[in-house]
């Protein structure tokens, strides 16, 4: 009887089809996700373009505008910012020098961090060095804590009195003023960044070295190659993709780094693109800043394009076939004690000294006086009316960080921000994972995949700038968000979409489609399948993702530095503020607070997911 079913009109059939598709949870999620990504990633990016090429209110005072008698109507198209950045007398100072500085720092950082990280990885994974495991664990500590505390510690030790302020530890001990190049500028910036970013290469390369099937190498040996030939012809080509990927990662992070060049460069007017962008915005030169932001995005995008081009093609031949037999370690002989001593010195100086120095400085009543009599807990726990033995208020009448209402509010803001951001990020991660994995191959899924990767190519400061242009004014139904706490949450969630998308898809990939289909056959609706099957099976990954976002947001500086206002200050921007005005003890105490939160967060993560660390930076 149904054979003879009446021919339905195409309109009704189309509607039926549409309704059926709209009932599919992966489609619903895909559509919601697409709307969110357009609103919070695509439109802000377009708006950055628009702002960079149009007049703003403050542009009336630009000399180019006044001289030519142009009417700078806000919102009208103009190339004046482009001209100012690229083709004007300002170009040298505003663009060329910062560009060269950025390239110099990034190149130096990449060379130092990559070679040191890779060699360290080889030593730890492939030799008979005593205490390799402990060294490996200690060497990953810099990955856990942010990059800029190292710069603060460097200042503490090497700052000289020439720039003003109190002397550093170096001058205190040796009674010798360190030369300017040692205190500020490219050399300390490269060293400080390298002390953080070597850990990326170390983790990536040691991961690859550890998973190479040692039978591949043993086959080479059986065929008569010596150890050196095996290393050059077999091992190196096999880990080359991961070395390359560490290279690109370090390179693109170098371009975007903000805190370290700000602390160690700006006092001597050594500008990189990121600090130049910041100072332009602070000087009401938004249009110029956005042109610089576009340049940074372009550079970062290019490095990622190279990544895909170079590694994408090479990765296919990497035969990391999992566990083979444990490779025989390379015997270092007597050299191993030399290496061991060198590594211990490195760990003490590079990993622990910064933390130690920051803690010490936070316990000094008077900055620059390293004697024991100068010891105080004031900057941690002191009351605002505490006086020293001379009857002078300590800390200029500001209470220690643990009882200072302003700092506690900042801490509360930080924690709140990190919690909100981590919650929304993980939630989004599930949606992204489900929408992309379960709808694999569809146009919507591909589009969402690409869009959710986009924020990755924005350096943090540029992404902050994007949000500044976008949400300074009301936009559609969204009111003006500048100065609100919500914009901090929004920007943090949006910037971390690439990471949450990776955690979400990875977690969803682990739950085979059949496990969900088995539930569907038993009559379980989507919500039941989600809460009874998918959620329990992805929970560990999501919790780890949650903690990871929590820590990352907690220590984020460049992303939010342009967006905070006095009432929405967070810990990191307070540190920046104290460092700028030279009130170091407070900054150091807050820094240590952030470090402690980051470290304890990482310990919690590792309990949930032993491989979280490798995964986050692996691909």
């Amino acid at each position, binding site marked *: 009887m*149904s054979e003879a*079913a009446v021919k*339905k009109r195409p309109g009704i*059939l189309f509607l*039926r*089809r549409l309704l*059926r598709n709209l009932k599919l949870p992966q489609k619903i999620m895909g559509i919601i996700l697409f709307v969110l990504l357009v609103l919070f990633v695509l439109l802000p990016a377009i708006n950055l373009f628009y702002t960079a090429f149009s007049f703003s209110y403050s542009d009336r005072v630009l000399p180019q505008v006044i001289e030519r008698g142009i009417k700078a109507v806000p919102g009208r198209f103009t190339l004046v910012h482009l001209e100012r950045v690229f083709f004007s007398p300002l170009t040298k100072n505003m663009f060329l020098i910062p560009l060269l500085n950025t390239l110099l720092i990034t190149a130096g950082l990449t060379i130092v961090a990559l070679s040191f990280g890779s060699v360290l990885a080889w030593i730890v994974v492939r030799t008979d060095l005593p205490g390799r495991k402990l060294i490996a664990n200690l060497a990953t500590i810099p990955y856990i804590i942010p990059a800029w505390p190292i710069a603060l510690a460097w200042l503490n030790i090497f700052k000289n009195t020439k720039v003003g302020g109190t002397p550093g530890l170096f001058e205190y001990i040796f009674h010798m003023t360190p030369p300017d190049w040692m205190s500020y500028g490219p050399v300390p910036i490269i060293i400080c960044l390298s002390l953080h970013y070597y850990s990326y290469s170390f983790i990536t390369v040691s991961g690859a070295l550890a998973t190479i099937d040692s039978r591949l190498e043993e086959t080479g040996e059986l065929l008569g190659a010596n150890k050196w030939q095996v290393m050059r012809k077999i091992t190196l080509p096999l880990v080359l993709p991961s070395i390359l990927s560490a290279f690109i990662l370090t390179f693109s992070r170098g371009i975007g780094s903000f805190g370290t060049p700000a602390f160690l460069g700006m006092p001597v007017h050594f500008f990189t693109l990121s600090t130049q962008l910041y100072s332009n915005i602070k000087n009401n030169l938004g249009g110029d800043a956005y042109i610089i932001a576009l340049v940074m995005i372009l550079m970062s995008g290019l490095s990622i394009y190279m990544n895909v081009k170079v590694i994408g093609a090479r990765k296919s031949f990497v035969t990391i076939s999992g566990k083979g037999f444990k490779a025989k370690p390379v015997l270092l002989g007597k050299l191993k004690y030399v290496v061991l001593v060198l590594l211990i010195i490195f760990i003490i100086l590079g990993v622990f000294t910064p933390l130690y120095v920051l803690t010490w400085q936070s316990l000094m009543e008077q900055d620059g006086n390293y004697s024991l009599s100068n010891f105080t807990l004031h900057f941690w726990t002191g009351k605002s009316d505490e006086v020293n033995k001379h009857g002078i208020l300590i800390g200029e009448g500001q209470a220690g960080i643990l009882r200072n209402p302003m700092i506690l509010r900042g801490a509360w803001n930080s924690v709140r921000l990190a919690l909100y951001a981590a919650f929304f990020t993980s939630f989004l991660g599930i949606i992204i994972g489900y929408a992309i994995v379960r709808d694999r191959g569809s146009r919507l899924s591909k589009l969402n995949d690409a869009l959710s990767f986009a924020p990755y190519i924005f350096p943090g400061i540029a992404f902050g700038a994007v949000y500044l242009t976008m949400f300074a004014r009301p936009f559609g139904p969204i009111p003006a968000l500048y100065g609100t706490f919500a914009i901090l949450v929004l920007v943090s969630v949006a910037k971390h979409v690439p990471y949450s998308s990776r955690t979400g898809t990875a977690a969803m990939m682990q739950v*085979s489609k*059949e*496990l969900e*289909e*088995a*539930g*569907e*056959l*038993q*009559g*379980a609706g989507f919500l*039941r399948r989600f809460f*009874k*099957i998918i959620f*329990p*099976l992805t929970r560990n990954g999501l919790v780890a993702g949650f903690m990871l976002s929590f820590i990352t947001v907690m220590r984020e500086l460049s992303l939010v530095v342009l967006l905070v206002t006095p009432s929405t200050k967070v810990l990191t921007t307070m540190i920046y503020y104290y460092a700028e005005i030279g009130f170091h003890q407070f900054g150091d105490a807050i820094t240590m607070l952030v470090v402690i939160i980051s470290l304890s967060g990482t310990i919690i993560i590792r309990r949930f997911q032993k491989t979280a660390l490798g995964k986050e930076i692996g691909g």
Partner: protein
Amino acid sequence: MAEYAKIRIENLCKKWGKVVAIKDMNLSIEEGDFVTLLGPSGCGKTTTLRAIAGLEEPTGGKIYLNGKLVFSKEEEIVVPPAKRNLGLVFQSYALWPHMTVFENIAFGLKIKKLPKDEIRKMVFAVLGDVKLEGYEKRYPQELSGGQQQRIAIARMIINRPDIYLLDEPLSNLDAKLRVDMRAELKELHQKSGATTVYVTHDQVEAMTMSSKICIMKDGIIHQVGSPEEVYRKPADLFVADFISNPKMNFFEAAVTTENNKRVINAAGFKLKIGPEMLGPEEKVKVAVRPEDFVITDNGTEYTVVNQLPAGSSSIVIAGRGGEKISLLFEGNFKVAVGSKLRLSVKEGLFNLFNLKTGKRIY
């Protein structure tokens, strides 16, 4: 017998972009049948099964279950899997690793909001059926492959579906267990009487278990028939070759006339053919199964190249000129390599195929 087929598939198509998984498929399965979808990997058999279950949306055609239309591309009708009253055992079993055996089996019943006592009773009864009493508190990963398999079956049968769908359920088990489970599955089918569709690439499984075999390749059904039919009367060269273990022998041959009688001369064997066997074709392909050779005094002489004894029977590879054939002898047959055998083909036990189309003529 019902007036309609239990499962009817009409003009079913499934494409993944440009790749065609199922091409214009028609199949009818009767109540109580045990039908095997058999074919090499990538032939579309699992896709067909998933389309019946409603887990895959075909790109064209219709599917009827119990005479009720559950899928039609033309009318945009797709009945969700849960409303098709069928059960499916996945190749991976798809047992939920975070649930105990009890929770796995009881999942569907809880959704139906049955009272707790009744659920307990039903789960324990089913656990008895699959001989896994006492395992209800274990987690799937604590069980062996064979036990997991039975849990998957228990989870399927507890909902009393009238169609069982089984997707290569034995492929993850070791050889011995596989033989045992075959018998158990067949018993389960006989006891329940549920119409069963069974996907496999193992021809022995298909031959031993099914009432009907549907042989597929590249999304096309080559033959549907009883095990005996597909074995003795393969529809074409593909089926003949696929359903053969040890390998079937193929010879190209021409039809000649000797003493007014038409004969086929293939690899030294003379095969008598009746007029009913063959039309006016001159060139054919002859297929002879390894067990269909006999040793006779006036047979064609072959030299033994190799012998592969297998206990109850023995495979012998013999050659003549450039031609090599496999022979199967029952029992403890022993022959020295290099010795001569005089062979002929058992009367009428061969197949003829059209050389061009590959279709069976006799």
